[in-house]
């Protein structure tokens, strides 16, 4: 069987398209590359969607935490503390066990039956946990950035008569994004890394449709040889990290385009790994 056949059989195996049975013996390098790469689709799915939705919630949370009103500030502080202070691994388990307890037949509400079984599936449940988790981490980043906006910028805005919503939209928010962006890039990278935890926590991989680490672990278990699959998945993740750094670097450039060249903040990788 040529490598092209393998790619056709297993290229989309992680989302249930193609060959049903996983290879059982005589593993080729091509099979390992293809399956692990197909698992990467799940990592991208979780990473991109959680980051996208998380961005909005994070902005809201950061503003709430910086609010003068205690009824806004306290819930945001608690939310951020709970999600940043506990391991993501435990959060996955907790969410899964809580979702399993929902009635199987669905919830009756005003005569409508709301199905609940889909929430225990990884694509929904795990995505939800990741979304809340990254919101909390990013909110803390944005909150820090919000507090380090130069006083002079705000005073200048007021001197021009820009106040209220206008001041926020035109001065505070762009500056907050600009200051927080390098840290946010790290958050994006490590959120992406955290997606590998999904299928090792409560959420089961139905029909052996798992993420990249799930397949790498499958190969390592079957062959008792960790020296092939793990370097392969490592290569995939290094490539993904480079792509994320590049994309976020472009955005960073755009956010900083009004500044003199030598003042631009560089994106530095900082380990903020396990959550």
């Amino acid at each position: 069987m040529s490598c092209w056949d393998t790619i056709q059989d297993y290229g989309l195996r992680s989302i249930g398209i193609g060959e049903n049975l996983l290879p059982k013996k005589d593993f080729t390098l091509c099979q390992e590359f293809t399956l692990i790469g197909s698992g990467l689709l799940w990592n991208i799915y979780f990473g991109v969607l959680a980051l996208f939705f998380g961005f909005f919630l994070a902005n809201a949370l950061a503003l709430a935490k910086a609010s003068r009103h205690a009824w806004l500030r306290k819930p945001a502080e608690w939310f951020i503390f709970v999600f940043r202070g506990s391991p993501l691994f435990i959060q996955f388990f907790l969410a899964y066990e809580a979702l399993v307890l929902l009635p199987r037949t669905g919830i009756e509400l005003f005569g409508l039956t709301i199905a609940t079984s889909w929430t225990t599936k990884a694509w929904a449940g795990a995505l939800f946990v990741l979304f809340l988790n990254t919101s909390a981490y990013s909110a803390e980043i944005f909150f820090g950035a919000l507090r380090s906006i130069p006083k002079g910028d705000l005073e200048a805005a007021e001197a021009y008569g820009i106040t209220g919503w206008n001041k926020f939209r035109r001065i505070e928010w762009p500056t907050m994004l600009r200051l927080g962006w390098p840290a946010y890039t790290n958050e994006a990278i490590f959120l992406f890394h955290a997606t590998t935890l999904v299928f090792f926590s409560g959420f089961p991989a139905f029909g052996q449709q798992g993420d990249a680490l799930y397949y790498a672990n499958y190969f390592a278990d079957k062959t008792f040889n960790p020296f092939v699959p793990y370097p392969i998945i490592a290569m995939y993740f290094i490539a993904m990290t480079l792509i994320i750094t590049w994309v976020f670097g472009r955005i960073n450039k755009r956010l900083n385009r009004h500044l003199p060249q030598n003042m631009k903040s560089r994106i530095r990788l900082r380990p903020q790994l396990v959550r």
Partner: protein
Amino acid sequence: MFSACADPKAIEGLSWLSCYLTSGKHLDFYWSFVIVLILLAVTAPAAMIFGFGGATMARSPIAPLRWVGKAYIAMVRGIPDIIFFMFFVIALDQGIEYLKSLAVCPAGSAWPWQGLEFRVCAEAKVPLATSSPLMFQMYGFFLAVFTFAIVFGAFVANVLFGAMQAVPRAQLETAEAYGMSHGQVFRRILIPQMWVYALPGLSNLWMILIKATPLLFLLGVKDIVYYARELGGSKTQVYEYPHGDWRLYYFLGLMVFYLTMTRVSEIFLKRLSNRLSKGQATAAGEAMRRAGA
């Protein structure tokens, strides 16, 4: 535990709960919290040693040593650390058995990686098949600690390397002007001065380390996650428990445990950072001087 618990039928309500929470399995569960604390207590210094070695190597004037140090620091960037955890546990296990097989196996033994299995001769198994279950547990725990130390050592190396670079050059030059040798500058100036710069990174790592401990479960150690799943389920393969699905409550308990741990560490590290900043030429130190004056 209590004598009243001997007859399960006769007890109910609170006394049932107290009997339930002191059953043998629950005592194992409480013990596993201690295991987590031991892991933290052993891993943190071990990772510091690994990290210090890595950072020093990365600064070495000898090129090959420097490359090794830099590669070690770069290792953890870009690759999810959980991959390292899963990799090192198997790789270390196999590596140890392979090295031992070179020494103790009869000459002409086959290459251990054969097709779908890893096989060394019986004498080279670590631990030996005849050793006690406790020995197996200890060995598993040792592998886990070692893996944690390697991975977190790389993070620490990253932080310490940055901190060593951050020590003001003028301080080192002053020491050299006083006639100190290279080693003396390193020991007397660089090491004592770098901590204030390293502390934010190190405290961040400590938090990450606390939050990484549930990964022990993935490394095959019977840790708190394992027991929470076992005890919380209404039945396992072996036992049937007299309660429904309580896993949610057990995991809530774990959550509270971790939140307490991180909160206490946060407060403690804040104090430490204040103490270290005293009299330092940093923004925090300057703020303290102003406040005092």
